[in-house]
């Protein structure tokens, strides 16, 4: 029986095609579900496959990521009626990826007013640096409605610098130190001094040896990461911490991801599955 009679498709063929499409669709759905489950199984601590859900909505709340209560008033001093504005001066040649990640975590926890400025010492910056903190908040015309301000200024500075309370605090320099400050707004450092030191030690390793080190030093760090990740799922133990954020961003920055050893590769995928590193990855494109 020919398929086309009088220039029209045979209805029987149409029905067959429809059934075929339906089966294909179900197969794809099944495949996606299995892949999602597979990722969840291989990622320690993940409640759900965030890479899928994060593509569906931009407001993913992963409040379970950091446990422990923090109070802005205790940490930053009493609210005197003015927006508590954290000012970060960064050089556009070295964007601080870990701070962008911490910013998105802060935005999920508090009402953060984020603004990006270009200082007059810099002639121009690429557009992705202007939008690196995400779209402008709808209420950004009313500064007093926010709990925290995050002002990123692209400026010709030799070293990254943070200013908060000009009267009571001297400026904080270096991405590692600013990362420590911002992290403490999310969760307290581990109470156990050994654990806290471990986190600090990874931070320093990441920023000094991985980013600023020679090829030899970098290779050594990757080996160290590999052996640590062989023992525990995350760098400082069973829980995701600032150490993981910092090391992941530095690995990304130095472009060592592709050539990293096995445990590190697995850990990189786990990090990505958590969905926090979107801003950092976007910037490097």
């Amino acid at each position, binding site marked *: 029986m020919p398929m086309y009679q009088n220039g029209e498709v045979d209805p029987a063929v149409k029905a067959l095609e429809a059934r075929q499409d339906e089966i294909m669709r179900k197969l794809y759905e099944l495949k996606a579900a299995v892949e999602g489950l597979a990722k969840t199984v291989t990622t320690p601590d993940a409640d759900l496959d965030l890479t899928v859900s994060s593509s569906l909505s931009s407001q993913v709340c992963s409040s379970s990521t950091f446990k422990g209560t923090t109070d802005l008033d205790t940490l930053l001093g009493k609210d*005197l*009626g*003015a*927006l508590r*504005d954290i*000012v970060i*001066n960064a050089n556009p040649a070295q964007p601080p990826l870990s701070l962008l990640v911490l910013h998105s975590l802060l935005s999920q926890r508090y009402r953060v007013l984020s*603004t990006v*400025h*270009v*200082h*007059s*010492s810099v002639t121009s910056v690429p557009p992705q640096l202007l939008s690196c903190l995400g779209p402008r908040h709808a209420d950004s*015309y009313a*500064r*007093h409605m926010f709990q925290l301000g995050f*002002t990123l*200024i692209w*400026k010709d500075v030799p070293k990254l610098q943070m*200013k908060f*309370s*000009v*009267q009571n605090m001297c400026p904080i320099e270096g991405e590692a130190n600013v990362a420590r400050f911002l992290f403490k707004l999310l969760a307290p450092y581990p109470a156990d001094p050994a654990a806290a030191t471990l986190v600090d030690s990874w931070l320093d390793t990441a920023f000094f040896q991985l980013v600023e080190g020679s090829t030899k030093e970098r290779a050594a760090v990757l080996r160290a990461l590999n052996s640590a990740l062989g023992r525990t799922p995350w760098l400082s133990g069973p829980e995701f911490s600032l150490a993981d954020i910092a090391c992941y961003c530095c690995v990304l920055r130095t472009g060592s991801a592709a050539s990293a050893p096995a445990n590190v590769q697995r850990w990189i995928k786990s990090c990505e599955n958590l969905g926090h590193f979107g801003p950092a990855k976007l910037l490097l494109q």
Partner: protein
Amino acid sequence: MTKEAVQGATEEEQQAQSKKAMKKQQKEAEKAAKKAEKQAKLTAEQQTTEEDDFAKDRYGVPAMVQSQQKLDRELVRVQDLTPEKADQLIWLRARVHTSRAKGKQCFLVLRQQQFNVQALVAVGDRASKQMVKFAANITKESIVDVEASVRKVEQKIESCSQQDVELHIERIFVVSQAEARLPLQLEDAVRPDGEGEEEGRATVNQDTKLDNRVIDLRTTTSQAIFRLQSGVCQLFRDTLTNKGFVEIQTPKIISAASEGGANVFTVSYFKTSAYLAQSPQLYKQMCICADFDKVFCVGPVFRAEDSNTHRHLTEFVGLDIEMAFNYHYHEVIDSITDTMVQIFKGLRDNFQTEIQTVNKQFPSEPFKFLEPTLRLEYTEGVAMLREAGVEMGDEDDLSTPNEKLLGRLVKEKYDTDFYVLDKYPLAVRPFYTMPDPNDPKYSNSYDMFMRGEEILSGAQRIHDAQLLTDRATHHQIDLEKIKSYIDSFRFGAPPHGGGGIGLERVCMLYLGLHNVRQTSMFPRDPKRLTP
């Protein structure tokens, strides 16, 4: 006495007299001899002068230029005198900045605005001794026409703007002679104050400079300042025109005081009197109600304020903006701040030479800004001041010292010399300011600051006739006097806002100068009406 004695005495007298007479005669003879010598010398000199002045036609004071003839002579600009023109014979017209004779040579510095070049007349086959003497005696500031050949120099001439060449003069004529005694010396006028004190050399005080403005404006610093000011005006116009704004002209003779009675100049107007406009406010708004949507105007503003401060003038140039907006007055703030940022960028990128020239005499920190402009709320500003120890109420206005302190605090935290303070308390703003929709204590108004000093006061204006009448009554303003103003809003008025800046103040603060009279060509203040 005996006759003989008397005779003797007379003889003595006679002898004395004749001695005197002889002395006198001798002296006269000497005098005559000297005179004769001199005369002889002069005639000899004159003879030599007349004999040896082969260069008589190549210098002098020609007849005043009364357009006797149309010479097709090309005059080269001093700034174009570069090694490329080496060995060319050129004509130029410039001022004599200095002239100094040294034996058989005379060194001159010829100046044209910011540029100067070394020139030299030397006794040789082209110039005579008399010519060199003439050149050395030309008074400073005289305008001369010079024909010279351009020569490359081995060692850079550090003191001139044209460092790689010098002129060897063949002909020099004085087109306009300056009087010998100048009221001020240009070198003194350009000398930084500190240097003057240290080295014991003169500087010129501001009043002398302003009294002799024509000469003071010739200095490199003044030339740079006013070229930069011209740039500000140009950038203001260009930026706004590109944003779709229309330039308007508003009347300056008006019938009623716009801002609030006290500080207006009165003029006699035929049988009645009128006022000089304190700001183009009313007319800008009327243009918006007349559907011009976005307007700006550049024109004089007259404030009869008896303030003798470093930043007040009685007449200044106002750059004013007014625009209709869609839903929120921040659209207006964004437009104004973007215009200011474009002006700052334009100055930073195209006027570095002028900025450096001014900094030589008046050193200052370069002007810094952020893009987009930093906007803080009034409550934030008050909190920052309170943190620094200032005591003030929530609805108090900012005093000038507090404004300066806040400027310093903002500079320390954000490293910017330009920012906006938004949401001022309603109580301290004019009657036509739109109140905040949620909090009656505050208003939709803002001030902008440069280096801690206010340069712009603006707001969303009340576009509803009834609310305007209520607010005016609340401020105890005579409604009769502002009837035509309120009438403008009775026939459909869009929501709108704007603000105005003073050209002189913006230039002063951008360059980091300390007195607005330095950026006003012929300033007007309570004590100065001339030049």
